[in-house]
């Protein structure tokens, strides 16, 4: 029953950064912004995977709402007025990225992902040249047990893109999280070495979806690890293809 009235209620108009845009019912602020060429920084969001809402870089201001909202997790409503950039938001975003650098050991100059890392790119984009917070310098291990892939916990930002792609697309659910707070960490199966996992299919999706140098192919040297991201636009399709 596609009466004109229905069509009208199915489409929504809103305003993002002084630009009038329209979208379908159910779309998130982030999706609509991207469709319209408006850039909102993200690290944990990945189209085709469930929304996580953990990195908090995509926070935007919504007129009339005292609280900031995560663009990736906010569904558009009629007449919304959104600002994605403001001195306050930029300051918060810078602090969040600084916190990520302080949390674990990120030494870009010796990282296999140097030059191809989303965290590094984000820092450059936000103009971060120093960190004001105390570095934690935690002792973390590198899991070299898998014969093709490597997990370096020093570089992990706990975005859980790997966990979600493994569970939702590959259907293996090899990865998950253990622990609380800054002690949280990615695990394989029941906190075993990756190489001993009985569920991992070695598909490599997690490596390619990981934004940082935490998941890499073995045998790569500094700056050599580039991720194959060509499959990423098809994640939604892959998911829909599942029974």
């Amino acid at each position: 029953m596609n009466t004109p009235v229905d069509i009208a209620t199915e489409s929504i108009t809103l305003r993002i950064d002084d630009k009038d845009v329209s979208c379908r019912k159910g779309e998130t602020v982030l999706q609509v912004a991207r469709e319209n060429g408006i850039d909102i920084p993200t690290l944990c969001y990945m189209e085709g995977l469930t929304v996580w809402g953990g990195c908090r870089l995509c926070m935007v201001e919504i007129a009339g709402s005292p609280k900031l909202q995560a663009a990736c997790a906010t569904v558009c409503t009629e007449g919304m007025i959104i600002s994605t950039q403001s001195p306050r938001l930029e300051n918060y975003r810078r602090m969040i990225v600084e916190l990520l650098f302080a949390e674990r050991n990120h030494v870009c100059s010796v990282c296999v992902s140097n030059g191809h890392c989303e965290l590094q790119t984000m820092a450059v984009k936000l103009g971060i040249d120093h960190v004001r917070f105390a570095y934690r310098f935690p002792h973390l291990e590198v899991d070299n047990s898998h014969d093709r892939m490597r997990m370096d916990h020093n570089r992990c930002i706990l975005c859980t893109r790997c966990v979600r792609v493994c569970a939702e697309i590959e259907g293996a659910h090899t990865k998950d999280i253990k622990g609380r707070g800054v002690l949280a960490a990615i695990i394989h199966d029941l906190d075993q070495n990756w190489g001993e996992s009985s569920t991992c299919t070695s598909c490599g999706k997690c490596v390619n979806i990981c934004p940082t140098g935490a998941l890499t192919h073995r045998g790569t040297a500094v700056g050599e690890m580039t991720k194959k991201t060509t499959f990423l636009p098809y994640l939604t399709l892959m998911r829909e293809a599942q029974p």
Partner: protein
Amino acid sequence: MKPEELTAMAEKVRKQDAHFSHHIHVCTESGCVSSQSDVLLKNITDEVQQRGLKGKVCVKGVGCMGLCCNGPLLKADDTMYQFVKPEDAGAIVDSLTSTPVVELVCDTKQPFFARQKLIVRENAGHIDPESIADCVAHGAYRALLKVLTSMTPQQVIAEVSESGLRGRGGAGFPTGLKWSTVSKAGGKTKYVICNGDEGDPGAFMDRSVMEGDPHRVLEGMAIGAYAVGAGQGIIYVRAEYPLAVKRLTRAINQARREGLLGHGLFGSNFDFNVEIRLGAGAFVCGEETALIASVEGKRGMPRPRPPYPANSGLHGCPTLINNVETFANIPAIMERGGKWFATIGTEKSKGTKIFALTGKIKNTGLIEVPMGIPLREIIYDIAGGIPDGKAFKAVQTGGPSGGCIPAEHLDITVDYESLTKLGSIMGSGGMIVMDETSNMVDVARFFMEFCMTESCGKCVPCRVGTYEMHELLDRICKRQATMADLNLLKELCDMVKQTSLCGLGQSAPNPVLSTLRYFENEYLKLIQSSPASHAGDGDHHVALEVLS
């Protein structure tokens, strides 16, 4: 169970009670059990038996009588006794027919008891929580009977709305509004969840309600389920509350056996069942979306809202989630009416609130007071003031999400609005009193450490932000900080508050912000006496070699 059977059950117990000429009630809640009230109860039972008074003296274990610091508490007829040791059993039994044991008497006319107003805790101290018959004799399930036989779900919701009851779990959301949202949500399967996670340090109100009057909670849940159209209830309790779990389990089993849970309650076509889920004790699992994830068998982590549980909760179904004390208020509202409830309290905060008094205060324990009571009255009259001749410094309300209220604001009334105005919150009801010896920066550090270790780790501002705020507070406490550190701390507080995903992170800075608001001089004093603040600018920024 048929309606007449409930009355018959109550009558039977009352008849039995009439045969007794004396009653001894021993507190058997966690506080008193920790000082051997369970042994005391056994000894008294034995003494009564030995004297051949079994048919004359009724001995029973009851819920918390409030003044836990003086436990074990015991009531023999109209005399209350405190600090009773197991070996006092004989003397107590003897006193029934002679004079009271003076050295153990606890004055029930003191303000601690006289100034309270009991609704939720009206039966604690009178009923045996392990006996459904005793609870029914004191009115349990009467409200449910009334609701199922004479009210429509809409009328129930209207009554709750009229009462003005607000959620006792912390945020104070209007309960009637929540119920009506869930009742309007589409879908055949709906759930009711009772939040008994109670993770705030220093809080034990909900534990006491679950241990002392579990049927009241079940009854409140059943009424909620009827109102919103749910058939299954879940009580989420932390495993650290073994006695509460035991009493609730027993209550559920008894209610099921008596037909007060199950199919076609009181001859209506309303079915309701309840099961218990144990939490492993993570503070964040008290947050509603994390709690639901935990019940679903997933890792207990919050998710962005909306959608709210009222529309999409447990297994994606509309879910009514309320706090233990919220549900425990419902039977009284149904029996006496929303109008009656609304006469108690202030304009926007209705009814009573249970508080757990702890810290540097004479009477520690549980109190139930009307909303709007002056804070001074709680601290100085009910709680008896500060011991050892020390001066009052501040009271912390709302636990790790709350703040401190200093002496100059002692005259405020205790309700949702005025506590929020002062930068604290009502929270779930913890009240930690501090005297002049407390260092407020240390208090802030304590709560930050709590938030840091309880952060679930999902979002960056809370996960790393609480760590860094704790670092800065620690540095200030150790006299290693500079003014730059204090400014950075303030900036972090703002960012973590504004950007965190759930209430834990959003409110983690509150203890810092409120101690800064009233006690900034303590921060400054520590910083001024730090060698670092005199050496250069104290800037310890680390250059980031991001770009190579």
